[in-house]
């Protein structure tokens, strides 16, 4: 049996996430992404909450892969090798850039890229604009006036 100790940057994304979680304090985003899916117009508006550990990794840099790798991996069939876990990590992002990265990663392109209707189906809003009363949660829609979120 041999034991080797060496100073190396983790090559796999999952290992970088492990290392980042042990080193970085979580960062709570002040923003939420409200969106509706035009393919299911009867469903309520959805609210995307950025993960605090993801935000910490994004703001610190050298953990997450380029967003293009996730986009290419969308086209890879299940079970086939994917690119994003092995891609070289990118540098630090701003808070705004991290939210844009999340939108492109976790929301379907049919919502943030391809939709051509007149209705506003996605908004990035301060967390204070998300209603705290959930009595009618399943009726939430994005307010088409600019000052209110839902």
């Amino acid at each position: 049996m041999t034991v080797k100790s060496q100073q190396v940057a983790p090559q796999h994304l999952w290992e970088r996430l492990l290392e980042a979680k042990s080193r970085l304090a979580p960062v709570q985003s002040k923003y939420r992404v409200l969106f509706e899916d035009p393919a299911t117009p009867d469903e309520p508006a959805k609210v995307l909450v950025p993960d605090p550990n993801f935000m910490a990794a994004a703001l610190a840099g050298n953990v997450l892969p380029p967003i293009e790798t996730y986009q290419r991996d969308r086209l890879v069939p299940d079970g086939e090798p994917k690119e994003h876990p092995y891609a070289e990590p990118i540098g630090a992002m701003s808070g705004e850039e991290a939210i844009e990265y999340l939108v492109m990663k976790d929301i379907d392109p049919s919502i943030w890229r391809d939709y051509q209707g007149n209705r506003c189906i996605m908004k990035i809003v301060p967390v204070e604009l998300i209603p705290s009363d959930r009595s009618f949660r399943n009726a939430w829609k994005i307010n088409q006036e600019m000052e209110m979120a839902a």
Partner: protein
Amino acid sequence: MSTLNVSNITDGTTTVGTSYVVNGSAKAWSWHSHDGTDYNSFNVSSVTDVSTGLTRLAWTNSFSSISYACTGAHDDGTGNDESRMAGFHSKSSTVVTEYIYTSSGSVSDQPRSGVFHGDLA
């Protein structure tokens, strides 16, 4: 970051291959409220509040395929410190939706947890 490159781990009596440790570890986990205000996790990039009782988790490092194991639980909200199993649907290698019901059978916004085992991409 220091790396120990070993093929086996032993306590002096029992020896196991490190592949058992690596492959047997949870690859993602989360504990979150419906709106993400109370939160801890690993390998999750976002939680989406889909509707009452439903939240969708997106993985930072996706799984290799849809064939991974999901285990979840939540407080039943009755104040009796009872936990109930959570359910999962709309699973892919990149996201999964978790849903929970109270003991009376209605969907619930109680905080919930999830642990996920399987092969990574």
